[in-house]
């Protein structure tokens, strides 16, 4: 009879609310906001309350998918990344670097955001860098 409540941080927005993921025998059954966290003080939004539903969901993406002949098929990471790199190079050659835009994220680290904008500016050669919060 193994019930555990594991403290974690919400993966959705940049707020970073703390909650307890409740598991029974290793399977997620519920979420409870952390009453002692100064960020959310025992409160959560509807997305946070439902976090336990998606983590172990069978509908979750587990592998890269590539559209071949109109259908999405599972491919390896290498094939997916090769395809993306190839296409980006072609688009840049054909339409110029400013035809590509980049959206940074509130949910990744400052360091990852730095790499993203560096890739945009130095590798691709565009200033078209914005943020997901502007959507």
């Amino acid at each position, binding site marked *: *009879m193994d*019930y555990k409540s594991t*403290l974690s941080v919400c993966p959705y927005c940049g707020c970073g609310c703390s909650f307890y993921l409740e598991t029974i025998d290793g399977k997620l059954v519920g979420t*409870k906001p952390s009453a002692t966290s100064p960020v959310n003080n025992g*409160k959560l*939004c*509807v997305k946070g309350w439902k976090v336990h539903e998606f983590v172990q969901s069978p509908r979750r993406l587990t592998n890269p998918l590539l559209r071949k002949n109109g259908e999405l098929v599972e491919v390896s990471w290498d094939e997916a990344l090769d395809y993306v790199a190839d296409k980006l190079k072609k688009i840049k050659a054909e339409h110029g670097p400013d035809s590509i835009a980049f959206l940074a994220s509130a949910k990744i680290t400052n360091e990852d955001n730095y790499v993203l904008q560096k890739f945009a500016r130095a590798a691709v050669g565009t200033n078209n860098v914005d943020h997901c919060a502007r959507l």
Partner: protein
Amino acid sequence: MKQKIIERAKELLTSGEIGGFLALKQEGVHIAPHLFTDPAELDMLSLGDGQGLGDARYPLVKLLYTLAERFPQEKFGIMVRGCDERALNQLLKEDRACPMTAGRVIPVGFSCPEELAQACECAKPWPDALVAGEKTQAFPPPEADMADLMAELQQWFGEADRCLKCLGCKNSCPVCVCHECTLEEEAMLPQRQLPPTPNFLFTRAVHMVDRCVYCGLCEAACPAGIPLKKLYRLVAQLVGQGIPLVGASPRPQPQPAAQL
């Protein structure tokens, strides 16, 4: 007061009378719901007082029901305040499909300090299954003045506009254990649209009539700070229930293991 709860829980666990004891565990500054199965862990038990009195409470009775369904052969102990016991009695009184009976749970209760009872406006800040603390003073709030009902309701429509429909109230409520919840029906929470206001808030208030134990966990979970207890009392009063003191039928005192 905490020591008495810990001692009683240790007694129940080591004697094998219960398979697990539901309470709160403190690790550093964090207090979380926990199912104690190892008596040695009980030294980390918390009553739910974080930075202030009773500000780190969780719906333990709700957890009890989840576990009771999952492990139908087990017997549980549970740490209860006055409100927790009322919630437990309410659920036991209702004829639910869950295989939870009075014989499967041993409540181990403690009373709330006056300061907290006053803040909660609690009508009965002690459980009948009292192991620690004594019967303290109750602070039931006065009935709502029905003289200007329309003005009162207008205020509530304003409050309802602030509701995010986060479902925090329903998720924190110790008596909300329905597998199929009205509030999650397509009609109440339509997908990909803003749900109609004030339907959500008032529907919940109606469902709480004669069920709500006024524990205040819904208010603690509400990001909009809506005074939900006040609304539930008002609606209960409107349908003629007066100020309810729910599920107060006394439970038999648990026998200490040594006497059995």
